[in-house]
């Protein structure tokens, strides 16, 4: 049987064992369900016995099924590769790999191409027969384990059996599994980025990367090409990221905060009912649309404005990207702040009004301080988004790595460079490609630090004011 039908069989078996377990629990307790003192009173509710039987039947079988499915193709491929004639092995590892690719694709397609190399045909045949054997053994094993498990689970059911605790333990295990998937994935990403970065730093010294002020990652692809010398000073990128983020936050934070204060403290319910969803629509616009808006509308406008007052403005400028990114972050900032401001208890407002404070005094001196941890959290989240934003910057700020604090010039950011480094034809282990990982790692460390600071601040205020 294939894996999918096998899974279906297990599913049916699961249902069946649930009802079987439930039924048996009722039988062994002889219907003494409500009576607390009856000698054969069930420890748990009948459905727990059902779940427990189900777990015994399905869980081990499922684990074996998954493991087998994961491991057997590897073993089969190894076996087939080993059985290839000596002449192919003598031709080197690449030749073996090439042949195996063909063999596997024929085997997976299920039909052997009669025009192919006879050696490959034979190998594919061998592969198929091994796979068939494996499939049969797997089916038999899984079904056997499932039935055995069911029998065991069924046998175990007695009034004293603590089915509820068992089921809870399994559920807890599943939760832990779910949590570890996320953690393990994160760890995996970090490690892979770390290793690639280490490879990069073997070619380019860390100090040059962190403190160099010239970024031009063009290197020769082949030895006979003349290309750029390739310099990897990341300072202009981080400066560009910082410049654009500062512009964006300088717009998003005051506007978002004031919008939030207006919505939660001043707006009539009717206005609020319309304004809040409208503001949230802004958050649903894809960033590429913002980028478009920045490149086609805002950047030319800034350029014209600058020329009108005699300033030279690049057609792609940090200001345009920052402005649009700021607008993009307003709903983010405002809806998070609105939530925390609304969470400030009414009794504090009453207390302040009762002292003869006006609305704005109350907001400034009571509500904002009380909501500060949340507002700081919102700010830092917005900052993380600004730092990580790519699309708007690609379209509006350009690709040239200028080290400048002038918002009217074109700059580029870390994320934009990662994109440009990884798109296009490149050898995977050239410094140019590896540089992307180093940039990613640095960015990751920066956002991590930002988040840790955010948590610290939030916790500090919590301790003080709860």
């Amino acid at each position, binding site marked *: 049987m294939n894996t999918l039908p096998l899974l279906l069989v297990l599913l049916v078996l699961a249902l069946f064992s649930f009802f079987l377990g439930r039924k048996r629990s009722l039988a062994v307790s002889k219907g003494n369900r409500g009576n607390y003192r009856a000698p054969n009173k069930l420890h748990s509710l009948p459905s727990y016995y059902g779940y427990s039987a189900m777990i015994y039947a399905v869980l081990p079988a499922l684990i074996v099924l998954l493991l087998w499915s994961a491991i057997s193709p590897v073993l089969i491929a190894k076996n087939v590769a080993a059985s290839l004639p000596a002449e192919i092995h003598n031709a080197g590892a690449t030749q073996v790999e090439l042949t195996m690719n063909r063999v596997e694709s024929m085997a997976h397609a299920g039909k052997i191409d009669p025009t192919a190399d006879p050696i490959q045909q034979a190998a594919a045949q061998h592969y198929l027969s091994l796979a068939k054997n494996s499939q049969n053994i797997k089916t038999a094993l899984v079904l056997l384990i499932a039935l055995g498990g069911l029998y065991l689970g069924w046998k175990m059911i007695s009034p004293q059996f603590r089915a509820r605790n068992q089921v809870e333990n399994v559920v807890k295990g599943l939760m832990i599994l779910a949590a570890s998937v996320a953690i393990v994935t994160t760890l995996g990403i970090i490690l892979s980025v770390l290793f690639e970065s280490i490879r990069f730093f073997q070619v380019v010294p860390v100090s040059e990367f962190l403190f160099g002020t010239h970024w031009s990652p063009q290197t020769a692809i082949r030895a006979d090409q003349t290309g750029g010398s390739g310099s990897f000073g990341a300072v202009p990128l981080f400066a560009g990221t910082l410049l654009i983020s500062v512009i964006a936050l300088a717009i998003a934070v005051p506007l978002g905060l004031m919008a939030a204060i207006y919505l939660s403290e001043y707006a009539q319910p009717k206005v609020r009912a319309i304004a809040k969803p409208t503001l949230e629509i802004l958050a649903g616009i894809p960033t590429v649309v913002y980028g478009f808006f920045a490149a086609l509308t805002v950047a030319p406008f800034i350029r014209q404005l600058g020329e009108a007052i005699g300033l030279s403005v690049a057609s792609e400028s940090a200001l345009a990207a920052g402005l649009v990114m700021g607008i993009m972050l307003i709903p983010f900032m405002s809806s998070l702040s609105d939530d925390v401001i609304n969470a400030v208890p009414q*009794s504090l407002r009453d207390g302040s009004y009762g002292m003869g404070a006006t609305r704005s005094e109350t907001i400034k001196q009571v509500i904002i301080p009380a909501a500060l941890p949340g507002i700081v959290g919102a700010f830092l989240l917005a900052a993380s988004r600004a730092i990580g934003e790519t699309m708007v910057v690609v379209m509006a700020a350009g690709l040239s790595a200028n080290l400048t604090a002038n918002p009217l010039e074109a700059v580029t950011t870390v994320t934009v460079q990662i994109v440009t480094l990884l798109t296009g034809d490149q050898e995977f282990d050239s410094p140019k490609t590896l540089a992307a990982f180093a940039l990613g790692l640095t960015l990751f460390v920066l956002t991590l630090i930002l988040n840790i600071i955010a948590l610290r601040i939030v916790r500090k205020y919590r301790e003080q004011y709860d």
Partner: protein
Amino acid sequence: MNTVTLANDSMTFPSSGTTTTSSVNKTDVDIHSVVEELKRAKQAVGKPFLDNPKFKTRDVNVYYNQTKQAIFNASLDIGRNEVIAMIGPSGCGKSTYLRCLNRMNDTIPGTKVTGDLLLDGEDIYAKDQDPVLLRARVGMVFQKPNPFPKSIYDNVAYGPRLHGLAVNRSELDDIVEQSLTKAGLFNEVKDRLNSPGTGLSGGQQQRLCIARAIAVSPEVILMDEPTSALDPIATATIEELIDELRSSFTICIVTHSMQQAARISQRTAYFHLGYVVEVNDTNTVFTNPGHRLTENYITGRFG
């Protein structure tokens, strides 16, 4: 206007299920006839009016959400340097009436207040009256202690700073110390004036709120069930404090507890279904009530 149906919609008779004691008049359980009777009465029994009162209120009506009426033709006076207790079943409008006296009801959208409310003869709902300044003259202490998320010092200094009562830091220090002393809290907190007010115990927090209220030297202090969230010992401390504060302030206190009203107040007003039923010396109200409904309430027949 059809007041009767309005009252019916908005008021629920307190625990009508448990008032079947034989001595309660059958008609008291029927909200319709009680409301009819209260409406006919025009004026509270006892002595609602005084010479030269601090607060003079006449025919006060309060509506929530423009239509739902919570107070009906309330007329009574509040004397100088007296503690007046407002008692009555839950939902009878005690808090609503109290909140008229410093226009806190203005902060609830859709609230309408009609009638005359005079503080020292001055109409507090007049067009040119600034509710913000009024609230500095008529302070308020709430049911749940609500210190601001600031230090103890800053909590007390909040009002004086708002209203510019101190010209320099040492004056402010004096105000804070005096207010905390008056509230009976200074000795307990003098070493930690800079730690957060929210870190104090419930009773201390409530005294901090009282200190905060008296720091702006109000003329009247309104208290809405100030001890209902506190344990008996903290309650006793606050009751003693209220008795001391009477020499400097007029105090209106809403309370659940009839013993508390009897212990600390000189006059008592009994509210029922949004009407002021009886106002008199506390002694008289509790020993010789003039209205059947008051008697039912103080003898515990309404729970």
